[in-house]
């Protein structure tokens, strides 16, 4: 029993964090917002060169062969930096599922080199992200996981998240390569991990603002009402993070109740991110109500990810069946059931 991330995991996440802080600051988000495509080959290439596309691809296929928990550490950083490229879907969700399905070595090699982008399609999501630039579509029907090359185009929707590219999906079809269950759980986990990073980014922005904005002759962060808003957000985030880590381990091991853990992670992280978004807006005053302050990029991503890959009702229903329905052992001694 050891609930710590390793030094290597911490170092990797810190490296990615530093890299993204250097090349993917808010000014990049604003530039992307002005681009028709909302995407940048340069940003994608940078992520690939950092090794992120191959993070979970086995070494034999040119990747780093790391674990889902490593992937969660990186997803947190992608959230923190507001990265909108389809790297999380491709490298952190699709790649491990393709590894588990087996027989996908060629595609995994392409993922590692950054030449394949995988769009994810699932009945729980009415829309599909980044379908236009995807090379492949990994989709789920009621029981099978299907892989197809993307064909044709789709109608672009208008998300409140300025960098999100959502499309009305056509039936993707393709060959069955496995069972469908894991797609939703993995994607919910990676969304949850991004929410942690998004929430921490918003808390940091609001805290910085509270240190510099002065009213009544003092920084607003010296006012207790402001302090307590921010402290409450910090509490929520602190207790969501280990839930996400626990779900990563559970899914990585294919544990019996991994789906419940994924739902718990999605709920805890989304609640924390949503609450932090409201707090951060409030602390910014009217600035928080503008398109000019960077905060809105993260806030809108938090809203989007809260309902993607199973909304609150969907995940609560799964907790309900397990906890009230009694399929999951609960109580002291069942911390890791």
């Amino acid at each position: 029993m050891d609930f710590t991330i390793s030094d290597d995991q911490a170092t990797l996440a810190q490296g990615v964090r530093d890299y993204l802080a250097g090349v993917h600051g808010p000014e990049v988000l604003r530039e992307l917002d002005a681009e028709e495509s909302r995407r940048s080959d340069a940003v994608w290439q940078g992520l690939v060169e950092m090794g992120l596309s191959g993070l979970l691809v086995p070494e034999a296929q040119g990747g780093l062969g790391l674990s889902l928990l490593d992937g969660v550490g990186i997803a947190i950083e992608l959230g923190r930096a507001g990265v909108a490229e389809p790297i999380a879907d491709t490298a952190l969700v699709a790649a491990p599922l393709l590894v588990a399905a087996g027989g996908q070595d060629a595609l995994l090699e392409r993922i590692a080199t950054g030449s394949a982008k995988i769009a994810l399609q699932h009945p729980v999501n009415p829309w599909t992200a980044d379908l236009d630039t995807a090379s492949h579509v990994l989709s789920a029907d009621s029981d099978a996981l299907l892989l197809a090359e993307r064909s044709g185009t789709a109608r672009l929707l208008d998300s409140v998240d300025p960098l999100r590219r959502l499309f009305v999906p056509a039936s993707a079809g393709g060959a069955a390569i496995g069972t469908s269950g894991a797609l939703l759980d993995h994607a919910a986990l990676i969304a949850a991990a991004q929410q942690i990073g998004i929430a921490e980014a918003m808390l940091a922005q609001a805290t910085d603002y509270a240190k510099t904005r002065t009213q009544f002759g003092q920084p607003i962060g010296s006012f207790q009402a402001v302090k307590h808003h921010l402290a409450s957000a910090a509490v929520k985030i602190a207790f969501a993070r280990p839930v996400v880590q626990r779900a990563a381990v559970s899914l990585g091991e294919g544990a019996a109740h991994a789906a419940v853990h994924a739902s718990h992670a999605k709920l805890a992280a989304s609640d924390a991110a949503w609450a932090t978004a409201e707090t951060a807006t409030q602390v910014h005053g009217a600035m928080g109500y503008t398109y000019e302050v960077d905060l809105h990029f993260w806030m809108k991503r938090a809203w989007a990810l809260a309902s993607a890959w199973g909304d609150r009702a969907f995940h609560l229903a799964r907790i309900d069946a397990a906890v009230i329905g009694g399929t999951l052992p609960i109580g002291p001694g069942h911390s890791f059931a």
Partner: protein
Amino acid sequence: MDLAYTPEQQAFRAEVRAWMEANVPREPLLTLECEQGYRQHVEWERKLASGNWGMVTWSEAYGGRGLDLIQWLIFEEEYYRAGAPLRANQNGIFLLGPTIMEFGTDEQKARFLTPMARGEVIWAQAWSEPNAGSDMAAITSKAIRDGDHYVITGQKTWSSRASFADWGFGLFRTDPDSKRHKGLSFILFDLNAPGVTRRPIRQLHGDPGFAELFFDEVRVPVANRIAGEGEGWNVAMATAGFERGLMLRSPARFQAAAARLVSLFRAHEAKASPAAREQVMQAWMDAQAYAYNTYAVASQIMAGGHIGAEASLNKIFWSELDRAMHRTAMQLLGAAAELRHLNDGGLNGWLEGYIFSLSGPIYAGSNEIQRNIIAERLLGLPR
């Protein structure tokens, strides 16, 4: 990260489980807050000590088992799983004990720790005064040096267990001219010493769970001072850290309450509101989150880390969780919520628990003070 228990840890769990099953009283004890209940709980402490379960993380030299924090968490899980009584010994083993280990002399360790682990001496804490609550640096009770004794005069209040306990520990002003955090010393005293008067205070539930203490020239040996004269504030802050931090409220306590809440919900499902259903799920999720976080903190400490102002995050989380869970239970009970004893004659534990949960956000440093600490020390906001 490895979230599986080792075979040794599983064997340890089985050992604790077997002992608890054989020894936990079949009938629930009376409340710890009344005299007879207190005696029953002390008897239980002695029983625990007879099995060497007083404080499993302490070294064998002091009546412990020299176990690590994961084993402690396992112990606590089995303790609550068995429905074992609350710990009358909590001030000693969770607060003063760690303080003496960090700041005490060898003589003090030898004198105080073993009787503490064995439940032979039950401790009360005495920080608060009528005019020093959240603002503890406003303490005015004095301990004036007289040869190798201090002479204590003043008043303490809200001292848990002090109505019945044996010894107390607290902060006293050893430099009468000092102000605020300076000139305070951390002193242990015998509650039966001449000059100490206890006035039990009835708590919200009606029983005297805490007391006022009056000191009238109470002579205490200088050898009962922990750390240097005038260094009491820092020692007390360490004690407070232990209180908010890892040990005072182990996750098993809330996991047990959440599981009971789920059972209560099932029994009342037909007339429960959809909101109650969601609150029950939230209770389970938050109790689990608290468990994961505690395992994470325990693992970090075992790897050489240490917990500082982060303890304030914990204190807010468990106290607000506890109150929310019990509030939900009160709402599920409907008309029966107000009954102190339910139809089957048993105590309405949810009502008792709800009443107690109201104190969680107040004691051990109010949650407002904890939010100040988080804002100033973790987020770096200006004071």
